[in-house]
């Protein structure tokens, strides 16, 4: 029997059902397409990394590690230290995540677990509409409308109230500027909320109904059900959503460039003017030449590296917490 199969495989394939007979070609085609797309992304990433690193070697070699991580950025005297920009990128992204994630996850839970389906749909449309607004519009609105208002009616009151208090004073004390780390963080938060919300919603919707029903059957309240059945199941996916949002916040250019204040300073005062890595590239690249240009391209390499580090760290945290949960 087995010798027959080996001797005439074509005949056997021919005798299979039409469904399985058509499959190999489609399978192979799809496999090639998927592989090619996957490789294309990788190749693009590698090419970007290689060519940017190549064009920034001038900076890396001249400035050295100490020069790169200094806070002094002054093209007039050929000092190109990137620390102020790294700091600004991290701070604004952290502010954006702190504001956007609770809101996004809460809205996602609201839409999947609380609100009836026919009401959820229009809310989803509204949130997705936020994602359609171009970033330059957010930036211009931020600098022309939002920044002047929040400076005079929020920041200045907070700053004068906390001035002198040890920790709060050094975070929220004066100087106060409408265009600042905090304003940039808020604008970025608004910009990443739609993507974090809609991805979290998708993930939370995958929680098996049986798990939820089980939790209710054990006498859980809605909150206990969310905590015990929904959260463990969707935690990983939500972190993935947050990471996508974080990536967008770190890379956001025009909106950040408009509202961050464009001053390369490292300060704990969140209401002071700052700078971020994409913003300085956008602002200074057109006139830059020589080492300055290399430094700006190098800034892109640093941003690339920073994004990878943040992603790896977040993945690590997720994995550890899942393992811990399984162990418990």
């Amino acid at each position, binding site marked *: 029997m087995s010798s027959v199969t080996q001797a005439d495989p074509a005949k056997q394939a021919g005798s299979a059902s039409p469904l399985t007979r058509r499959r190999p070609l489609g399978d192979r085609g799809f496999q090639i397409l998927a592989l090619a797309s996957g490789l294309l992304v990788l190749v693009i990433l590698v090419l970007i990394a290689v060519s940017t690193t190549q064009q920034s070697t001038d900076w890396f070699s001249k400035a050295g590690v100490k020069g790169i991580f200094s806070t002094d950025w002054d093209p007039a005297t050929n000092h190109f230290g990137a620390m102020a920009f790294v700091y600004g990128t991290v701070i604004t992204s952290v502010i954006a995540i702190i504001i956007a994630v609770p809101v996004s996850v809460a809205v996602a839970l609201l839409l999947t677990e609380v609100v009836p389906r026919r009401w959820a749909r229009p809310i989803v449309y509204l949130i997705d509409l936020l994602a359609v607004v171009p970033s330059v519009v957010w930036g211009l609105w931020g600098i022309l409308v939002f920044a002047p208002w929040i400076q005079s009616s929020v920041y200045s009151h907070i700053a004068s109230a906390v001035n002198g208090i040890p920790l709060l004073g050094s975070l929220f004390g004066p100087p106060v500027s409408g265009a600042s780390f905090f304003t940039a963080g808020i604008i970025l938060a608004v910009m990443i909320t739609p993507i974090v919300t809609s991805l979290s919603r998708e993930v939370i919707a995958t929680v098996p109904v049986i798990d939820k029903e089980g939790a209710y059957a054990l006498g859980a309240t809605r909150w206990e059900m969310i905590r015990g059945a929904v959260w463990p199941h969707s935690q990983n996916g939500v972190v993935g959503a947050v990471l996508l949002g974080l990536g967008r916040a770190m890379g956001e250019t025009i909106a950040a460039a408009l509202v961050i204040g464009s001053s390369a300073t490292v300060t704990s005062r969140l209401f002071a*003017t700052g700078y971020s890595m994409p913003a300085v590239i956008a602002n200074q690249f057109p006139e830059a030449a020589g080492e300055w240009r290399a430094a700006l391209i190098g800034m892109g390499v640093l941003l690339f590296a920073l994004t990878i580090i943040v992603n790896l760290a977040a993945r690590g945290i997720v994995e550890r917490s899942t393992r811990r949960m399984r162990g418990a």
Partner: protein
Amino acid sequence: MQLRRSKQVTAVGGAVVALALSVAACSSSSSSSPPSSGGSGSTSGSGSGSGTLNGAGSTFQLTFQQAAISSFKSVDPGITVNYNGSGSGAGRTALASGTVNFAGSDSTIPPTEQSSFKGTVLYFPVLIGPITMSYNLPGVTSLKLTPAVIAAIFQGKIKAWNDPAIKSVNPGVSLPSTAITLAVRSDSSGTTQNFSLFLEKAAGSAWTLGSSSIIKWPSTAHAASGNGGVAQVIKSTPGAIGYVDYSTAKASSLTFASVKNKSGAYVAPSPTSASAAAGAVTVKPDLTFHAVWASGANAYPITYQTWDLVYEKQPNANAAKLLQSYLGYLLGDGQQLLTQLNYAPLPASLDSMAKAQLSKITS
């Protein structure tokens, strides 16, 4: 449900890939600009020639280029000219890499870039213009400033409008105690470059921030993008002072100060006082010069200039002919467009020197 979800996930994935691709596309297009073949119609080299000229660079001359390009169409319909206001540095990079036929630049080629150019580059000055010291002080319609006072203000040393240093040059003007808000450029710019060059030359050791297209301003400064952005900050902030290109200051109807020039006279910015400044400077044989801090009683001290840069040796005769034709127009009839655009035309002597240099463009 399952099916729809997987579709949406695919859509998100697709969007991410598309985003990555478009970013890659953007970055590659900005570095290599429009491909041009040095006058693409090289086969039809008869008459005044026909083909395409691509230029890129300085945003200072962008408005002039746009006006000149549209009126040049009626002069020579066979030639198409494109100009991309990408910034002086980007324009020079594009010229060095051969992706454009000419580059607009507000400053001469810095020594660090010199090696990237393969061949002699000719400078053609096309226009000049004043940089205003625009301010927002309700009730104060005339203000005088000296280079030393401007340097102190822009280094954050003078913090209020009723500072004795400002008062002493403005006798009889009642200055309020309003705090001074600095309005500066956040993007790199030839305006910043020439403004800081003025302070370096005029204020001497009192100016410590150097000269560059990006300056490390005091961190209290309000930075905004473009001349228009700075004008917006000045308009909306009482107590603000900033450096704004004359045509933008006029368009935004800002109030601006008279500045003390090299001869000791206070001169208000205008096309006339800018021309006076450019007429007084010593021009080098390669037509490079700095119009800031020029001598002459009527010269406005913060006047700057912009050039169109071309290679002396063009790849073919047609490319040379096209450039001669267009640059000849900019230096000839094109100069008459300048006054209504709130720029200043070149002084006659400089203009004729530039015209004489046209014949140097050869293939």
